[in-house]
Each structure stands twice: as structure tokens, then as C-alpha cells.
């Protein structure tokens, strides 16, 4: 690992990227405070040889994207590299200033962003953007670059590779855009590509294809890659080595197999074992608390049906998980149950009575017994209210609690969510993502509900934090005897928390029953695809899953 000192490198050596003792700082402007300097990356070094793939992994704020961008000499916003060196092909690219960096960017190093939909210019045809870097750096003529682009489109499995470049972003799906972006990065034939969470925004069944396409492209072109992600299972499919980062510092750095099979550091062990949480299902009781009866819901005057003939039940004190990809209608179903969106037909029975279809006609007690927790905890709270006010509000509203009585109950709830009464006077902005979600849980519990609808409540959180939230929810379920309707796209979450599962696809429930039977063979085609698309933390999973997928495709 130790390299000889000195700034000169043998250009024939296989060492491509050598980032040494990187220190990256940013200026933050806390409200009402003077601007402060914070250290985003602290003394991190890494090396990458030609044609190899290094995975950078960590939770949000770990500094992994910052490291990736630093390899291009780029800092987002106020971030700046305040220490260390970046050698690319033996040259220190930070030495020559921004003019030198511009020569390197787009020719020797290219970048693939998380959200290709946002990273493409919506006013330009895709082809013009794909060939732009190659033309700008004089690497190829337009005709050569377009020819290369079409070949890359074909290699990456895009439909109609000859003509897809003539389209605009809004005419191409998210998974396809991510492939086009990979083609854009490969077009100037760089030595290194920085992949920054390239599949994170995709549905799981889309992710697997894109992942396989990226892996093949890396192998066939011999390009080296920095692969940034928070998902250890994903990164273990594509990388030769993995570096684990946390709070801007390196935690562990080693071969992929060592990291996932024999992690040395506690934090890495936590990351690896994060998906082992398993919940033993309860047998469904005789009575049901919530019963959704043949509900159909539609948007707009055209009556586009997003939920069709859905019937599911939730037993008291148990958890029903609704699983589906984006657009499957699972969140719309939640809107119907809460009364935010009256259904076209069908009814909702709750605790033995039929609920009014619209929110305005429901009684205060209906509202109290049916609470909701959202994906984005920070936008679900008033940023100008203290934690005490936020949790105290349902106590005042439903139970008329005031003053000391209310504060005592708030303190109790804060203890229940394992945060403690010290947080009473804090503002949401002072809390971490996981803490914010805990406050939302406490607010829901304050109403003493019989059912809480949890809409993707762990999706925006880092795996270790999400795990803590799931454990908390399970514990609270036992104490408070509350039922959950758990909406998620993540099958690991489902395994961790559900008693029964409903799989939704294009507005319909395609599979429904107790967890053990839903997750047992024989599967229907969609559930099979969904389950087999979830990355497993084992080397070679992607190849096995892909060959199964193509076998299934050629069979059909």
C-alpha cells in the first residue's frame, strides 16, 4: 500500500489514480450563526490500477461522492480540496489550476450521476450530449463519435440504438437514461469513470439490468472505475476492492471478498449484517382491524386507474407490508385508506365500522386511530416548531392535554423512541435523519392509534439507521399493540417487519397472504422477478441472476 514519495510516476506503471491524504472542507451557513468550516473528508488516501474497480461505500455524509468528485478536482457548492494530492496517470492534476482540470475532465475521467434524468440537459437531443465531451476535447470527429455512441448504445442494451440518440430526456425511461449516461461517459474512451450511485434511483427490477450492463461495459472496454454506493450488495457485484468510509474518514479498505466475508472493523460488520434482521410472523387473528374491500381508485378526468379491485386485511397489532415498485399504486392505496383520495368504488372497514370515503366526513376519532408516518421526515415537520411542540400537538388536539400533563407525556414518548427528554426543546434542523423519523413515530404514537400507515419510512435513511428504526417499530408494536400498514419497495424491510404481505403490480394485488407463504415457491412471474432482482451480498450473484433472467426471457 505504501508508495515511494515524490511527485513523478512512471507513466508505464499500471497505477492510474493515486489520491493521497485528501482533505476536503466546506463552508456551511447555520441559520442565525456565523459561517463555519466543516471537514467533509479527512486524510483519505486511495489507489486504483488501470482497468480495476474500486467501490466506495458508506452512508450519506460519509464523503464518498465528495471523494469521487475530488478525483476530477471538482467540489460541489462550497466544497474545496484543502489538502492532499490527486495523481492521474502520474500527473498531479490539482497543480495546474482549473484550466488543466478542464483538460482532464471529460477526456481522461468521466462521471455518471445518480439521477440521469436530472443530469441530462432537457433541451438538447441525447446524442449531442453523448458526443459533446469527445468533440470538445478533439478526441474524435462528430461522425466517429456518433458511430462509437451507437455501438455503446447497442452494447449497453438500449432499444433502437441507431435512433435513440435523437430523443430528448423526457422521451426515455429512467433505466434507459442511466444506460445512455454510461455510454456518454464511455464515449471519449476515458481511463477512469466515476459512477456515483448509478442505480440507486431505479426500481429493483430495472436496477439489475443496468448493473449488468455497466459491469459488462467496464469489462469490455477495460476502463477503470470508482463505484460509489451505499448498497454493499450492489458494490460487491462490480468491484475488485472496497473502501468503507464514515464521517469523512476511512474505516476499512480491502478486497471485496474480504470486506463482505470477513470484515475487520465493527462498522463494516454492522453494514454487512444489516440485512439479517428477521421477524417471525404472527398467525393472522380471526378479526381484522382494517379491511380494504374491492377498492378501485383513479386520477384525473380520464379516470386513469391506479388501484384496481384491491382487497386486503390488517389484523390488530400486526403488520401488513405492501410491496411494489414505483407506479404500482401502493401510495395511492394509502391515500384512499386515509381518506385523502375518495375511491371510485369499494369501501374501507375499520374496527368494525365503515369509514367515510372522504377525509372531511370522518370523525375526529377516526382520524386519531389512523395515523401516518412519511418517507421524508424533515418535510413532514414544521421546521419552526420544537420537538416538544410537534409531539405535543396531537396530545392537545385529541386529548385536550395542556401544560405539565402534556410535557410529561411528551417526555414519556421521547423515552419510548429511545431519544430522551433532552430533545424537548430542539428544532428539527438540529436532528439527524434517523432522529427526525423517530420524532415522527412519536407524534403518530401520541394519538394512541390502532393503525399506523408507514409510507416508505426507511427508504431515505442509511441502512444502519433504517435498521434501528425497524427494530424500534417492532418493539413499539409489542408495547402499544398497534398495527402497521407498511408500504415499501424494499424486500429486506418486508422480511424484517411483516406478518403478511401484499405484492402490488400496476395497481393490482398479484400476491397476498401470510409472509411465509408469499415468500415461498411456487411464485407467480412478477413476484419471482421481484425477489430474484434484489441484490444479494455474495460475489457472482449478478451473473447467476442475469443468466436466470435471460433464460426466463428466452423461454417466454
Amino acid at each position, binding site marked *: 500500500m505504501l508508495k515511494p514519495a515524490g511527485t513523478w510516476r512512471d507513466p508505464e506503471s499500471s497505477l492510474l489514480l493515486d489520491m493521497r491524504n485528501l482533505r476536503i472542507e466546506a463552508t456551511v451557513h447555520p441559520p442565525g450563526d456565523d459561517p463555519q468550516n466543516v471537514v467533509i473528508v479527512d486524510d483519505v488516501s486511495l489507489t486504483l490500477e488501470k482497468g480495476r474497480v474500486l467501490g466506495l461505500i458508506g452512508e450519506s455524509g460519509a464523503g464518498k461522492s465528495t471523494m469521487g*468528485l475530488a478525483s*476530477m478536482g*471538482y467540489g*460541489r457548492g462550497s466544497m474545496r480540496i484543502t489538502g492532499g494530492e490527486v495523481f492521474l496517470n502520474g500527473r498531479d492534476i490539482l497543480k495546474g489550476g482549473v484550466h488543466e*482540470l*478542464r*483538460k*482532464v*475532465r*471529460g*477526456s481522461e475521467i*468521466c*462521471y455518471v*450521476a445518480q*439521477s440521469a434524468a*436530472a*443530469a*441530462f*440537459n*432537457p*433541451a*438538447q437531443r441525447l446524442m449531442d*450530449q453523448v458526443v*459533446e*465531451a469527445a468533440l*470538445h*476535447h478533439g478526441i474524435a470527429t462528430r461522425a466517429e463519435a456518433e458511430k462509437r455512441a451507437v455501438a455503446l448504445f447497442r452494447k449497453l442494451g438500449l432499444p433502437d440504438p441507431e435512433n435513440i440518440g435523437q*430523443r*430528448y430526456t*423526457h*422521451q426515455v425511461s429512467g433505466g434507459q437514461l442511466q444506460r445512455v449516461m454510461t455510454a456518454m461517459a464511455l464515449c471519449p474512451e476515458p481511463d477512469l469513470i466515476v459512477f456515483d450511485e448509478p442505480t440507486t434511483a431505479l426500481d429493483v427490477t430495472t436496477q439489475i439490468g443496468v448493473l449488468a450492463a455497466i459491469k459488462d461495459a467496464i469489462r469490455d472496454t477495460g476502463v477503470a472505475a470508482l463505484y460509489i454506493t451505499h448498497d454493499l450488495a450492489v458494490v460487491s457485484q462490480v468491484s475488485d476492492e472496497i473502501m468503507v468510509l464514515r464521517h469523512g474518514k476511512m474505516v476499512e479498505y480491502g478486497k471485496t471478498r474480504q470486506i463482505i466475508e470477513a470484515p475487520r472493523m465493527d462498522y463494516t460488520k454492522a453494514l454487512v449484517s444489516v440485512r439479517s434482521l428477521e421477524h417471525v410472523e404472527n398467525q393472522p387473528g380471526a378479526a381484522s382491524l382494517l379491511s380494504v374491500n374491492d377498492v378501485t381508485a383513479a386520477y384525473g378526468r380520464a379516470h386513469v386507474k391506479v388501484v384496481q379491485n384491491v382487497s386486503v386485511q390488517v389484523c390488530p397489532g400486526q403488520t401488513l407490508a405492501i410491496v411494489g415498485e414505483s407506479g404500482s399504486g401502493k401510495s395511492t392505496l394509502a391515500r384512499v385508506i386515509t381518506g385523502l383520495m375518495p375511491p371510485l368504488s369499494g369501501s374501507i372497514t375499520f374496527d368494525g365500522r365503515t369509514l367515510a370515503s372522504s377525509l372531511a366526513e370522518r370523525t375526529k376519532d377516526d382520524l386519531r386511530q389512523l395515523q401516518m408516518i412519511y418517507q421524508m421526515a424533515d418535510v413532514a415537520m414544521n421546521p419552526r416548531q420544537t420537538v416538544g411542540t410537534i409531539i405535543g400537538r396531537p396530545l392537545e388536539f385529541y386529548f385536550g392535554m395542556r401544560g405539565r400533563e402534556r410535557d410529561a407525556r411528551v417526555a414519556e414518548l421521547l423515552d419510548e423512541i429511545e431519544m430522551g427528554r433532552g430533545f424537548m426543546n430542539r428544532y428539527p434542523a438540529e436532528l439527524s435523519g434517523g432522529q427526525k423519523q423517530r420524532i415522527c413515530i412519536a407524534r403518530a404514537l401520541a394519538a394512541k392509534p390502532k393503525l399506523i400507515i408507514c409510507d416508505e419510512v426507511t427508504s431515505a435513511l442509511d441502512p444502519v439507521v433504517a435498521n434501528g428504526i425497524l427494530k424500534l417499530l417492532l418493539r413499539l408494536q409489542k408495547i402499544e399493540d398497534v398495527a402497521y400498514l407498511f408500504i415499501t419497495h424494499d424486500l429486506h424491510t418486508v422480511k424484517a417487519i411483516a406478518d403478511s404481505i401484499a405484492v402490488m403490480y400496476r395497481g393490482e394485488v398479484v400476491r397476498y397472504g401470510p409472509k411465509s407463504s408469499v415468500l415461498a415457491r411456487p411464485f407467480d412471474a412478477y413476484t419471482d422477478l421481484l425477489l430474484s432482482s434484489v441484490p444479494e451480498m455474495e460475489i457472482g450473484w449478478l451473473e447467476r441472476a442475469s443468466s436466470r433472467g435471460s433464460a426466463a426471457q428466452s423461454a417466454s
Partner: protein
Amino acid sequence: MGTSLANLVAQRIAFGILLLFAVSVLIFAGTQILPGDVAASILGQSATPQALANLREELGLNDPAIVRYFHWLGGVLTGDLGTALSSRQDIASSLGPRLWNTLFLAFWAAVVAVPLAIILGLLAVRYRNGPVDKTISGLALASTSLPEFFIGYLLVFLFAVKLQWFPSLSTVYDGMPFLERMKAIALPASALTLVVLAHMMRMTRAAILNVMQSAYIETAELKGLKPLQIIRRHAFPNAVAPIINVVMLNLAFLIVGVVVVEVIFVYPGMGQYLVDHVSKRDVPVVQAVGLIFAAVYIGLNMIADIAAILVNPRLRHPK
């Protein structure tokens, strides 16, 4: 799906026409409630009651307002704007050359102001928060804060009185050679340019800066493009819609807001004509000029709306 684009455009045009009708009602109603009697103001204080009654009859002032409105509207739609009460001349034929003069002045002011504003806006973004940006913004804001008449007289003082480069009165006449005419309008056109420049420049800057926050700008930076290339290829095309909007708003101002500048430079355009006839309480002229100003305003805004629809790639290239 091309029909949806045509539909949207047709909708905007229909709205524009509807709005123009509504404005014509307002103009008509507004001039009706003006105090005073047209017949009395034409004939003067010493008129006999009989003469007043005859004139009213002749002018159709005794008809109900709604009949007069439709009579007026029918005339307007056939190109007959009525007769000026004060001069007894056909309004359309005396308005024609003045409208042309106003458009001529506005056109040349726009030819200078629009590209200048956009280029200054682009430069301000390129060197944002630096001395270039601050100088551009400062000067532009200063010129906007000064009232038009002040700028007008300042220009006259400097370039007509002191330097004697341009005439202080913008006299133009039929058959005037082009260069002479340009020389005559140089000062009013400059005054107008200074008035509208800052607004367009600031809005261009703001619209582009807004787009500069987008992820695709970062993509462009990571391709190694230079700042001006990024602004030109990736930021500007996505900021065009709001820029067109503010440009059209200012073009409309160049035509309908020239009143003060025309009066200062005694330029024979619509504005001066309007001011003359307001003081003479010549209602048909005021109505006609008001309607033309409204039509220009609505028309340019409609063009801005349609242009914003046409530059939207989602609408131009549907799925």
C-alpha cells in the same frame, strides 16, 4: 400528439382575442365616465342649448351606451376608428404615420436593448458576484432608477447641448433620408434603451442563474467545458422561456410606454398624439389609441406565451 401543441397555441390566441374584447369594453366604459360633455367642450362655454342638442344628435351621444359601443366596435373591426372631434379628421389616417413612427423608434431601441441586455446578463452570470457582475448590475439599476424624463434631459444636455452630436428635437418627416432619421431618433432611442435595459438584464441573469443550479450544469462542468460554453449550450436554452417573457414585456413597454420620451423629444408618435388629445378631451382618439396600445400589449404577451410553449422540448417532442 402534435395536435396538443396546436391546441395549446390556439387556446392562447383565443384567450388573447377574448382579452382584447374585454379591454375594449373597459376602454369604452372608462371614456364614458370621464367628467364633462364632449359637445360642450367642442362648442365652448357660449354655445346655445339648441346647438349643443344638435351636435349631440349628430355625434350620436343620445343613443344608449351599448348601442354606441357596438357601433364603435363595428367601426374598429372594419378599420374605421372614427373621426377626431377636435380636428374633424379621420383618426385612422392621422394615426397611421404616427403609429409607424412609434414602431420605428421602438424597433431601433429594441434592436439595441434586447441583445445588449442578454449579453450583459450572460456576462454577469459568467463573472457572477465578481466586479464585472457588480458593475453591470449597478449601472443597470442606476439607469432604471432614474425617471425617463431625467434621463431624457440628461441626454439632451450632454449630447445635444454640450457635444452637439444629435439634435435635441426629434423632428421627422415623410421622405426623410434614413440616416437623418436615425440621427433624429438617436437620443430618444437611447433614453428608451436605458429605461428597459436593467429589467431585461437582471431577469436574464436570474433566469440563467436559476438553471445553473441544475444537475446537468454539473454534468457539463465535468465534461471539461468552459464557463461560457456551459452557459451558451446548457444554461441559456433552458432559460429562454422566462427571458422571452421579460423581453416581450419590455417590448410592449417600448411601444406603449413611450409617452413621456416622445413628449420630451417632441417626437411625432402615438404617445404625443395621445397626450394632445387627452387634454382636448377628444374621446374617440383616446379610445382608438388606448385600443391600439392594448392590442400591442396583449399581442406581444401572447407571442411570449406561444414562444414559451414552442421552446419547451416536452411539448415540441411529445413521447
